[in-house]
């Protein structure tokens, strides 16, 4: 799909063109999700709220006063998202500071339940499906060490007795397959069950 420059989108939205608003959402939503994923600490619900809030603010601004430099619409949207994420973090910090200490002790680990509910369950399901499909335990360990333990590629290759080419190939295959699973949304009942069991 064609990319419409910020200046043109801004002008069309100011002129009341609702198709330009849809276009802005289509263009910016993926990038905003990337930016806000990094800043919402795995809270999927908060991520979705902030993406929506950012897009609403940007559209309302373009419908009204507009922005100083319409060519820099992407930078404006990115900064709006960062500001919202910071404000949300500050609010959460304030709430943590105000919390009743006795109540905290009564609920030994309240974040655990919330985290489970708010996380990207679809990604968890897709990873389970992917891990089941990977023929060798070595490939599964490779993913874990690379993504979760932040081990260096060379170290992983050495530990798992892999050549660099084999490492890159396995990683690229896993990425491709993960995307395919999500796109197909081909979850079997057993995947949904394994999450609850």
């Amino acid at each position: 799909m064609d990319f419409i420059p910020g200046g043109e989108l801004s002008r069309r939205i100011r002129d009341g063109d609702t198709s330009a608003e849809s276009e802005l959402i289509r263009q910016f939503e993926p990038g905003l999700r990337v930016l806000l994923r990094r800043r919402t600490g795995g809270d999927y619900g908060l991520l979705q709220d902030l993406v929506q809030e950012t897009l609403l603010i940007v559209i309302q601004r373009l419908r009204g006063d507009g922005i100083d430099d319409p060519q820099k619409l992407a930078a404006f949207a990115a900064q709006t998202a960062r500001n919202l994420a910071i404000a949300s973090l500050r609010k959460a910090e304030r709430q943590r500071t105000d919390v009743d200490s006795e109540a905290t002790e009564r609920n030994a680990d309240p974040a655990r339940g919330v985290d489970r509910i708010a996380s990207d369950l679809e990604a968890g399901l897709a990873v389970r499906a992917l891990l089941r499909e990977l023929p060798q335990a070595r490939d599964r360990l490779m993913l874990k060490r690379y993504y979760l333990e932040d081990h260096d590629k060379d170290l992983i290759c050495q530990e798992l007795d892999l050549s660099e080419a084999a490492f890159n190939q396995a990683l690229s295959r896993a990425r491709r397959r993960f995307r395919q699973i999500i796109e197909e949304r081909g979850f079997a009942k057993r995947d949904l069950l394994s999450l609850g069991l």
Partner: protein
Amino acid sequence: MNQDQIDEYIAGSMSEADAQAFEEYCLANPEFARQVEYEQRLKSGLAQVARGSTAEFVRSESPLRWNLAAAAGILIAIFAVFYAWTVGGRAPSTILAAVVDGAPAGDTSMRLALVRGSDSIPTLPDGLVRVEIVGLFEAGNLYSVALDRREQNQNDTVATLNDQQPSSPMSLDVLIDGKQLRSGSYSLRVRKQASGEEALDFGFEIP
């Protein structure tokens, strides 16, 4: 931008200035951003699985596990049929109605939006109210709207509407007949149909 930069961004090892430039590049290149997001989700999914048990990364298939899964599947299917029979089969209610050509316009109107940090809860005016739900809606998608009564940490669904089309990318309109509702706290939950997305929850009160 290349794979090494994606890896650096996801690992959090990029400088803040470089990360901001990377993010602006993502906003200007939606397909590239999708690729990055898949990587973020892969990492997030791995973290979820690892929180459960590291055995997931080394385990072999277990027949007992699938037997348990099959048994649980049958229970879920029975529950789904029961739910569809008892809840899904209810007659449509006029408490909540779609806004269509030729329908009453409503005595008054109200706008519901999610405002972060807001402490005030809107009040539904008297009579038949046209409610504009403000959010981001994708053209061509259908949405379901559920009206819930909130009582002592419990939500009871009073009425539901399916297959609603947004009136614009930022609004979806419904009619609520407040005369048929008791005073108390209510919420409208709006959800994109045939998606795993969470519902948006808009609270209001009837005095």
